[in-house]
Structures are given as structure tokens and as C-alpha cells.
């Protein structure tokens, strides 16, 4: 217990104090954008991880991230909503959509489910291109930055437009959301429902035979997963102030899945670590120019051969040895 507490404190100190201090010391404020992206993408990956947890391979998270982004952008631009209100609405919209889509497709298993979700990403992109409200390939641009939040006349969060460096504000916002999402995930996995979900991963028929309502349970897990996807998409458009049909594509969906694999499917914090390593690794290799993809993919193959159960399985090796 104390070990976990120390881990949590170290982690909080690292993201809230060490990272900003390091960035201030090196003067590379553009790194804030990188870490904001990592935080947001790891929220979406956390959703994918949850579907892995019930034994489904989900390559469709890009669809919900795109949907969440568009819901938020449309509400802000056409209906004059505040950015803050659009966040939960985008998440809930995606969760509702995923319940409708999930009921039929969650009956599929294995590669069939994986492929349907992959196609779902493509369907969402084509829909964003075809629907009139999404403005086609031109997308929705120059979305205003988030406004202030005040409670009883007290300003809790200042207007992002008046800030000297809104990047820092977005960094803190995304990191806080990430921590909240992973806290929810951790609590869920270690609850009674989480243990039942684990039984789905191993044998659905057996779970069903002892009275587990598997249909409701997997739809619930999928809805939470999509909520995370929509939330991260909505915050993303706040940070980039624009959204296009190509903002989240099949590549992103596959990356969300790879983040989970790389971190480790058996560990709640696997997607967070996986996103950090993959995203930073890809960006660090940028200087290698044309060899970027070659080195990146070779490293991935080697990692898979050495640690097929994810980076976090390194710890369990040590304990065993």
C-alpha cells in the first residue's frame, strides 16, 4: 500500500513539477504540446485497453475521438457553447453512440470485432467528409480557445485567450484529465465489476452460465471506452483549434491499439507508458529523416520479440528472478 502511495506521489511530482521545471530550464516550450498530446492520446488508449480487458480487440477508437472532436467543434462554433460544457457532452454523445453501435457488433469476437471497429474508423472519416454540418474536407478551423470558469463570482480557471502561454494551461488540463481517467480505470478494474470483466476475457460462456449479464457488461465497458475516446478528441480540438476528417484516421486507431500492446495488456498503466514511449520515440527519431520509419518499426519488432507481454512485464521478470 505504501509502495503504491509513494509511486503516486512521485508520479504527481514528476508531471506537475518536474516536467514544467525541466521545460522552463531548457526553454523548449514546444515540448508542452508534445506532452499534452501524450496525455490526451493516452486517455484514448486507456479506453482501448478497457475493451482489451473484456477480451475484445478494439481498432476503432479513432472513430470516437473524431466524433467527440466534431461534437465539441460544432457545439462551440454553431451553437455558441462554452468549451467546458462540450467536454462532458462530447463524451456522453460518444458513449451513447457506442451503445447503439456496440449492441450488435459486440456479439462479434476475435478478428471479426477488430475488423468491424477498424472499418468503423473509416466510416466515421467518410461520414465527416460527406455530412454537410462537418464542412467536408475543409474541416472546422479557428475554434476559439476555452473561456473562463467562474463559480459564485470567483474565477477558477482564467480565459485561455488572455494567458501568456496557453500551452502550459492545456498541459495542466490534459494531465489532470489523464489522471482522472486512469483513476476511474484503476478503480473500475479493481472493483467487483472489474473482476467480472476479467471473467469475460477468459470465458464468456462460463461467465454467462453462472449468471453474469455479459451483454450489458460488455456494452458498459465499450461505452466507457468510447467516452474516453470522445473526451480526448474534444480536448484535442481545443488544443489544436481545428478539426478535419483526417484528424483521426485508421493509423491513429491502430496506434491506440499498439500503445496498449507496448505498455502491456495486463497492466492498467500500460497504455500510459506505451503512448509515452511510442509518441516520444517517433518524434525523437524525426531527426533521422528517411530512416525514421525503418528504425521505429525495427525497434518495435525487437521489443515485441524481447518483451511480448509489454514493457511493464519487465517488473514481473525481476520479481520472479
Amino acid at each position, binding site marked *: 500500500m505504501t509502495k503504491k502511495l509513494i509511486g503516486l506521489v512521485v508520479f504527481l511530482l514528476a508531471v506537475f513539477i518536474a516536467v514544467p521545471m525541466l521545460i522552463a530550464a531548457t526553454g523548449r516550450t514546444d515540448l508542452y504540446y508534445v506532452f499534452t498530446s501524450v496525455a490526451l492520446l493516452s486517455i484514448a488508449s486507456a479506453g482501448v485497453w478497457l475493451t482489451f480487458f473484456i477480451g475484445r480487440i478494439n481498432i476503432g477508437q479513432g472513430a470516437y475521438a473524431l466524433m467527440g472532436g466534431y461534437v465539441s467543434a460544432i457545439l462551440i462554433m454553431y451553437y455558441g457553447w462554452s468549451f467546458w460544457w462540450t467536454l462532458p457532452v462530447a463524451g456522453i454523445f460518444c458513449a451513447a453512440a457506442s451503445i447503439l453501435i456496440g449492441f450488435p457488433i459486440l456479439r462479434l469476437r476475435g478478428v471479426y470485432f477488430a475488423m468491424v471497429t477498424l472499418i468503423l474508423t473509416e466510416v466515421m472519416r467518410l461520414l465527416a467528409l460527406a455530412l454537410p454540418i462537418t464542412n467536408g474536407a475543409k474541416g472546422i478551423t479557428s475554434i476559439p480557445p476555452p473561456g473562463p470558469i467562474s463559480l459564485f463570482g470567483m474565477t477558477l480557471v482564467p480565459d485561455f485567450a488572455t494567458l501568456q502561454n496557453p500551452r502550459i494551461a492545456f498541459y495542466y488540463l490534459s494531465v489532470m484529465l489523464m489522471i482522472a481517467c486512469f483513476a476511474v480505470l484503476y478503480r473500475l478494474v479493481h472493483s467487483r465489476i472489474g473482476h467480472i470483466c476479467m471473467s469475460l476475457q477468459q470465458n464468456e460462456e462460463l461467465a454467462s452460465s453462472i449468471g453474469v449479464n455479459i451483454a450489458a457488461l460488455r456494452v458498459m465497458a465499450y461505452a466507457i471506452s468510447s467516452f474516453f475516446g470522445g473526451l480526448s478528441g474534444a480536448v484535442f480540438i481545443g488544443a489544436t483549434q481545428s478539426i478535419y476528417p483526417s484528424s483521426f484516421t485508421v493509423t491513429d486507431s491502430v496506434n491506440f491499439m499498439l500503445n496498449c500492446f507496448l505498455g502491456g495488456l495486463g497492466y492498467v498503466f500500460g497504455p500510459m507508458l506505451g503512448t509515452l514511449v511510442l509518441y516520444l520515440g517517433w518524434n525523437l527519431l524525426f531527426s533521422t529523416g528517411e530512416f525514421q520509419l525503418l528504425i521505429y518499426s525495427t525497434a518495435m519488432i525487437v521489443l515485441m*520479440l524481447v518483451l511480448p507481454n509489454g514493457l511493464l512485464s519487465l517488473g514481473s521478470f525481476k520479481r520472479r528472478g
Partner: protein
Amino acid sequence: MPGPSITFTWWIRRLMEQVIANGLFLGAQYALIALGLTLIFGLMNVLNFAHGQMYVLGGFITYTVYGQLGLPFAVAVICSGITLAVIGGFMERYLFRTVIRRSHREESTMMLAAATAFFFDAVMLLVFGEKQRGVPKIVKGVFNNFGVILPYDRILVGLIAAILILGFIAFMKYTKTGRAMRALAQDRVAAQLMGVEVDRYTMIGFALGAMLAGLVGGLLVSITGVNSGIGGPISIKAFMMIMIGGAGVVSGAIAGGFILGMMESVGLTVLREYGDVTYLVIFAALMVFLSIRPNGLMGKPWG
């Protein structure tokens, strides 16, 4: 002089004949791609993300041997097939087998497959560049009869593809290797207990699947050309085909290939003005179809 209504129906019929001919041609190619993918899936439960990239590599090898070095087309296509078979065999032996043995969850092979897809993409981009590559026509002339217009090279390639499909079915049905692989796909443990050398036949199966991808790539480079960016989209199309037909089943892959070829051919004609809407309709139809029939047309349950 025929009235306007007669002219219209005449045109529709003409158009349909053309569309069906195109659909059959496309379907034969697609079926071959899907066969390789479904073979690998049926034997190892591995969804080979790199299948489209293998197809592209086959295309580039034929482009080099036939287009650049000037050797006969048949030699070039055979070169493509053999190279890909060797690569496939090595991939199974040194990559997939290791990961399957050491991983707790079977799905981990998907990450490996995706990584090899990236790897192939990177290598082909470095070696062959990003330009669209084509080769000289293998046969000149156009077949123009019965209201169907088809260049002769398309007919030839379509026929070769059909022969390859029949050959593959015969191979799976009548040879010892084919029988062993079918047994493996049905029940791995039972096959092993009956004395089938599981490791050896899995490797042969993977090599054979990769070889099929290489052969189609080599054949099609003479018609559509090839460029290093189309691997991913081809993989997705191949996934769709095996899902329509049912993953891991030979007849399903063939059916899926022809159905998708026909749908594309008809869709692109009927919905020509709307462009991407064709794929939107195909995708949406596929999702509805799969939620009604989760195993495709003839798939085994829970493949």
C-alpha cells in the same frame, strides 16, 4: 429508328455487361489476395497486417525483373512468388513463432504484424521510392465483342488468376501438404496427435500465403502499376473480403473476393458522381451484414 426507351435499356444492358466483366476480373485478383490471408489466419490465428505490403513487394519485384532487367514476364512473376515465399517462411520461423510461444495473449501477434507492415513500408520506400511504377503491356490489343470492352492483358491476367485459384484448391485438396494444413486449421492439437509436424506445416502455410500475395502483386503490376503507399489500403480490403466470406475458410475467401470485386465494380458505376460514398455504402452494408451474421458467409464460429 428505336425509341428513346429502347436505347436506354440497350445502354443499361451494355453497361451491366461491362460492369460484370470488370467485377469478375477484379474479383479473381481479390480472391487470390484473400486466399493467402485466410490461409495464414486459419493456420496460426494471426491476422497478417503486412499482407498488403507483401502484395506491393511482389509488384516491385516484377517491376524490377520485367520492367527494368527486361526478362520475360512469367519469370518475373515466378521470382516475385519465390522471394515472398522465402520471406514469409523466415517471418514465421523467427518472428511469429517466437512471439506466440512467449506471449501470454494470442493478440500480441497483431502488434508484431503491424510492426512488420511498417517495416516493409519503410524498406520499400527507401529502395523503390514513392513514385508510381508501371511496366510495358504484356499483350497489346483490346477485346471488343458482345458489348464488352476489355484489353487482352486484363483477360490474360484474369485467366491466370483463375487458374491459380483452381490450382490452390486442388493443392489443398489432393496433396499431403494440403491435407496436413487443412487438418491444422480444423484442430491444431488433434492434428499434432495424429503425427502432423505442426511447426513445419505452419511455416509452409505462411510461406504459401505470402507467395500468393507476391504472385498477385506481380500479375497486377502489369495492369494497375504499383506504388509503395498502397499496402495499407490493400490489407484493409483483404480483411473485408475474408470477413464477408468467413475467416479461415478457403471457399469463404474466394466468395468474399468476388463479392467485393462485384460490389466495387457496380458501386463505382452507379454512384460515380458521389465518389467516396461508394465505400461508405459498402462499409455500412458490411457492418450491418456482420451484425446479422457474425461469422461471415461460411466462417467457423468465433474465428
